[in-house]
Every structure is written in structure tokens, then in C-alpha cells.
């Protein structure tokens, strides 16, 4: 599976590089590492794509930056920090868990919790055979009054 991903990454890298052949590193291992980092970064020009997937000019430039920095021996974290310093946290494709992203990360689980709670309460009530009154006493009285009214038919 991992091999498949690497192969996929490499072929993507090759495709992405077709346009900018002069900049492409001859070292396939470096290309693969570059693509791993590029997958973590959002392309700010085309916001729902990663830099790895994007062919926008800026994405091509940033991929070159990643290559240069990897060749200088920088770590993945150093390179991601470099991008965040310039473009903000929005550039991270997977937003980190922080106070201002708590709702984003935990919101779905809160909603799921509420849904489960409602389900449990509903099931329990049905088990006890307690049907909620379909009509209030007032409604019954109204209906009775209508039924008791003589009609012409």
C-alpha cells in the first residue's frame, strides 16, 4: 500500500513537473519528500487544492521553495513553519487543533452526541409505552364541539 502511494506521489510529481522541467530535481527521493510536504499545504490561489495537486504559478514556485529547502537539509516542520509565517495557518491543509479551531474539530462529534441522546430518549419513551398526547385537552374539546355541531348533510 505504501509503495503504491509512493509510486502515485512520484507519478504526480512527474506530471506536475512536466511544465517546469528545468526546476525538477533529478533526485526522485527528494521529489517524493517534496510531494509529501506539498500535500500538507493549501494552494491559496485555488483554495480547495493542495500545492501538490495545483498547477498554479504560485504552487509551482512554492514547490521549488520546498525542493530548495529540502536540499539545504531543512526538516518538514521547518518548511511548514516557513509557509505559515508567510501565508498564515490557512496554508495548512489540515488545520491544527487550537482554541479557534476547536469547534471545527469537535463540532461534528457534539452534533453526533446530541443526535444519539435524542435517539436514546425517544427509544426509552417508546419502550415505556408513553406516547406523547397527539392532541391536547383543548384540541379534544374543539374536536368534540365540531363533531357535535349538527350539519346539513
Amino acid at each position, binding site marked *: 500500500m505504501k509503495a503504491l502511494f509512493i509510486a502515485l506521489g512520484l507519478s504526480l510529481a512527474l506530471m506536475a513537473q512536466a511544465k517546469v522541467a528545468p526546476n525538477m530535481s533529478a533526485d526522485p527521493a527528494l521529489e517524493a519528500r517534496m510531494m509529501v510536504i506539498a500535500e500538507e499545504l493549501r494552494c*491559496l*490561489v485555488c*483554495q480547495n487544492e493542495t500545492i501538490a495537486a495545483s498547477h498554479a*504559478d*504560485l504552487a509551482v*514556485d*512554492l514547490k521549488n*521553495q520546498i525542493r530548495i529547502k529540502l536540499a539545504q537539509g531543512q526538516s518538514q516542520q521547518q518548511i511548514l513553519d516557513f509557509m*505559515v*509565517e*508567510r*501565508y*498564515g*495557518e*490557512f496554508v495548512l491543509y489540515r488545520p491544527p487543533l487550537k482554541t479557534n479551531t476547536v469547534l471545527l474539530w469537535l463540532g461534528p462529534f457534539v452534533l453526533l452526541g446530541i443526535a444519539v441522546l435524542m435517539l436514546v430518549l425517544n427509544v426509552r419513551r417508546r419502550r415505556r409505552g408513553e406516547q*406523547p398526547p397527539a392532541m*391536547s385537552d383543548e384540541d379534544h374539546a374543539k374536536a368534540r364541539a365540531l363533531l357535535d355541531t349538527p350539519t346539513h348533510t
Partner: protein
Amino acid sequence: MTSGNFKRFLPLGIFVVLVGFLAIGLTLDPREVPSPLINKPVPQFKLTVLNAPDKTIAAQDMLGKVWLLNVWASWCAACRIEHPVLVELAKTNQVPIYGLNYKDKSPAAIAWLANFGDPYVKSLVDADGLVGIDLGVYGVPETFVVDKQGVIRYKQIGPVTPEALRDTILPLVKKLSAS
């Protein structure tokens, strides 16, 4: 409120809340990503001057005055829309505008300024876009307001409009110049 009433109005309530969220969402522009560079020093640069390739300007040369840094390119369509606004602003001498000619070819850039007017004190050549990356530029045109200490105080993403000038940029320039 009886439970019957509550149930009856629950869908409406959810709908109203949803409409509220969507209405707020409509007023936000997802393209405007807040810059982490606000209140940070302008990145170091030393760039060639367009028109005068033997001269360079560095970030520290700009200390002591409030200035605008406008990122532009001759290939940028929105820059053409913005350009008359900058030309008018330059005539009023309220604030010096420096251009960052981003990923452009200098002959094309020079021709462009000859055609549409040159509002810039100087334009700096960032042919490979590296200073642009340091500035977090992702959509040309972008305009930065830099204070006397060389700190970025505001960033306009997209064209400078007369409204943005009147309501945000010029008041800020006035405030920074006075301090």
C-alpha cells in the same frame, strides 16, 4: 410554551439559525486570508530598480517614512483596474507608493507604465517572485501599508478601491505619519 409548540417551531428555528449562518457567510470573502505579517517588519529585500538596473533599494532604505508597497505586474488584469486609483493618489503626494513588479518581464513592465502612467516613486524588480513569497503574496495586486519603523500595518488584498483608500488606507497613513 408547550412541548407541542416547541416541536412545531423547531424546524423553523433551525431554518432561521441556518439562514443566519449562511447570511454571514455571504458577507465574507474566502479569498481574503488574514496575513500573519501584519504588525511584523517588512521582510528583508534588496532589489533592482525598474528603469535603472544598476540601482538597488533595500528594506532598511525605507525606514523613517510611511509608504505603500503595491505588488503589481503587467500580466495582471486587476492591476489595470486598480491603476488609475494609484495614479490619482500619487498626484496628491499624500504618501509615497513603491511598486513591487512581481514575476514580470522588465520591458513589458516599463511599456505598461509608459502606457498607463507611473504612480510609483520606484518600482522594484522581483522577477523570480521570491520577495513575493516572503510577503505572502498570493493574489496580485496586493498593497501593504508600512510605517516609519518598517512594520507592516495593513494589507489590501486585491485592487485598491477609492473606498478602501478613503475609509482605511489614507486614515491609517495619516495616523502613522503623525506618530
